[in-house]
């Protein structure tokens, strides 16, 4: 029996089991098997190649084991207890009013100045009100269409431009890459697709915030950005307001592809709900982000500000394949309370004259645990490759920890590597100096922390940088003492 036949048989057997009717219902029972994978694909009306890709990923996932990371710990995830069907949340399951939401979360919303209606949406309460952003989004789409830029959900893209999806999806992060990437490839719910044609400079910053269906893309999000020769695009992901989500596990995959002379700037401000003081209800964020500088002189730049999640595990990486291509990674990560973060980057130098810059700023307060793990690999053909790494940790209080693990592999003698690392504490002298000038302790801390992070904030688009600063101050309130 050929494999196609086998699949056909399985598909048929599904119908026999009355699977379709189940698909029509709102939510699939928890658990994961091939039927569920097929059901997801079917429900989305995907072309067969997509269903096949999902199944292949699923079968590969079965052969893999969940990674164990020394630096983070969390209760074992029961993958059969998760519902993989991204049906819209039923109104009766959602919190009814703001009264049911963690007061600490609401306080943060108020401090950020978020309007009530939007607070409800962020907290997962069903709202009828249509946001301004919806109409804004429509106008934006028109401007983008004029420039020839495609900016839509992955589901739409699978229908409207399947050849692009076929060509690029999984070409940077194959399903074989890691456990969570395989899982994502099998069951991904939705996500964002961006395509910038040759020579086009995208006329605006692209943000998921402006995408109508962005709010419920679910736990297995998939993003694909393709920048054709000589094009430029800046993409903003996330939102400074802490987002609550019923789904505890988030395993997203982000793929960026920059062709010759193209530049992609990808900025993230992530503020998932970290849970209450015990870390309960917090999000586990296991995401695979990778950029492929496929063409000569292409450039991919990751900038991230991470303050949320109970557990974060992410390493935005760059494959520097094109000659003279450039990879950058600017990161601020904050862990406080009982948060744990294991983050960093990988810069894989393959082409000649490739350059990379890594600036990582870790801030740890309370009992926060933070690990920076960075890999810089200079391949055999990467003549004249250069890397500069700067890795700074700032500790607030004496119960938090920060660790740095830089891994360097150099296979070409001409490589130039620079590595700087510092660990500092906010000293009593600094605090007293600020306070003696009339600043409160919290103002003093946020001022020093913002100063510490300045190099990274400078990389963010203006409005985002301002929000990120505000966010950081709020996150660290009460962190001292």
């Amino acid at each position, binding site marked *: 029996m050929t494999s196609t036949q086998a699949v056909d048989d399985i598909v048929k057997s599904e119908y026999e089991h009355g699977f379709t009717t189940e698909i029509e219902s709102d939510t699939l029972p928890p658990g994961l098997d091939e039927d569920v994978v097929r059901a997801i694909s079917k429900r989305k009306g995907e072309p067969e190649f997509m269903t096949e890709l999902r199944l292949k990923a699923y079968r590969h996932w079965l052969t893999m084991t969940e990674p164990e990371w020394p630096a983070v710990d969390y209760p074992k995830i029961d993958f059969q207890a998760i519902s993989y069907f991204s049906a819209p949340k039923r109104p009766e399951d959602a919190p009814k009013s703001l009264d049911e939401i963690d007061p600490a979360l609401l306080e943060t919303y108020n401090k950020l100045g978020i309007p009530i209606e939007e607070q409800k949406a962020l907290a997962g309460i069903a709202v009828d009100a249509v946001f301004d952003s919806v109409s804004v989004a429509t106008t934006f789409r028109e401007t983008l269409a004029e420039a020839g830029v495609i900016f839509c959900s992955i589901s739409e893209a699978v229908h409207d431009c399947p050849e692009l999806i076929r060509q690029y999806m999984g070409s940077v992060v194959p399903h074989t890459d890691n456990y969570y990437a395989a899982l994502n490839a099998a069951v991904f719910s939705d996500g964002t697709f961006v395509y910038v044609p040759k020579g086009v400079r995208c006329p605006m910053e692209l943000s998921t915030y402006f995408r109508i269906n962005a709010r419920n893309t679910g736990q297995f999000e998939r993003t694909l950005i393709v920048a054709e020769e000589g094009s430029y695009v800046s993409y903003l992901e996330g939102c400074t307001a802490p987002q609550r989500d019923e789904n505890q596990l988030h395993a997203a995959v982000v793929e960026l592809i920059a062709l010759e002379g193209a530049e992609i700037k990808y900025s993230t401000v992530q503020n998932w709900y970290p849970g209450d003081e015990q870390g309960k209800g917090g999000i586990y964020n296991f995401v695979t982000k990778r950029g492929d500088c496929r063409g000569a002189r292409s450039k991919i730049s990751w900038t991230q500000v991470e303050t949320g999640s109970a557990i974060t595990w992410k390493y935005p990486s760059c494959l520097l394949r094109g000659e003279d291509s450039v990879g950058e990674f600017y990161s601020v990560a904050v862990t406080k309370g009982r948060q744990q973060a294991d983050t960093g980057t990988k810069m894989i130098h393959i082409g000649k004259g490739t350059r990379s810059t890594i600036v990582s700023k870790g801030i740890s307060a309370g009992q926060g645990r933070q690990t920076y793990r960075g890999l810089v690999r200079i391949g055999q053909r990467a003549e004249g490759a250069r890397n500069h790494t700067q890795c700074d940790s700032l500790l607030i209080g004496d119960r938090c920890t920060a660790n740095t693990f830089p891994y360097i592999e150099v296979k070409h003698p001409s490589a130039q590597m620079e590595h700087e690392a510092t660990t500092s504490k906010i000293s*009593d*002298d*600094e605090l*007293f*100096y*600020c*306070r*003696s*000038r*009339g*600043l*409160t*302790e919290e*103002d003093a801390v946020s*001022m*020093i922390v*913002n*100063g*510490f992070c*300045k190099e990274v904030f400078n990389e963010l688009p203006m409005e985002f940088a301002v929000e990120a600063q505000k966010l950081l101050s709020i996150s660290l309130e009460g962190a001292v003492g």
Partner: protein
Amino acid sequence: MLSVKGLRANVGDKEILRGLDLEVGPGEVHAIMGPNGSGKSTFAHVLSGREGYEVTSGSATFEGKDLLVLEPEERAQLGLFLAFQYPVELSGVNNTYFLKAALNSIRKARGEEELDAVSFLRLIKDKLKILHLDDSLLKRAVNAGFSGGEKKRNEIFQMALLEPKLAILDETDSGLDIDALRVVADGVNALRSPERSMIVVTHYQRLLDYIQPDYVHVLAKGQIIRSGGKELALELEEKGYGWIEAEGRAA
């Protein structure tokens, strides 16, 4: 304005201030002199609320309010200012930004309106001129990489900007070249007013030629052992501290 009575303070097990008395009235300038390690900086720190000191007895009130129960920022907001003997570097914190935040924090606490960027920059320009400070220092991080003299001038610049009611200058003159000393003294004198009092800690009579004090005190072993007019400083310059301490022991 400031009234200190029988102030005793420890660092760890060690008693540093041993019953210190000092009365400072509005508009008065008091000089405090005394040997190294006698407790001058400790006194300044205790007044401005630095942690790490334990006040075991005595009191310090400022305009009738008990200073010792207040947080450092609350004291600053009341109008207390300390020019540090060793100004602290705040790497990454822009000087202008820092000053604006400090000034607005104080204004806010006083119920005054916060200054916007434009009025603040105008204010800053005026004050810079008084201290002959180069405005490039404003674009840098607070005290980071400043020369010793620049740090001291920056302290007085901050004082000029924050317009305190009581300023404590802890050895602002040490580390200044002769011209800078003049400039700083001029800056300080420009801030003298019937409402503003100052405590000037110094080792050198020379500063007191420029900033004429109303009173001079000698602090030794945690106590004020002698007070007088500005002629006391001249006497100290000539004879050192030994004779007063000897007289103290004889008495």
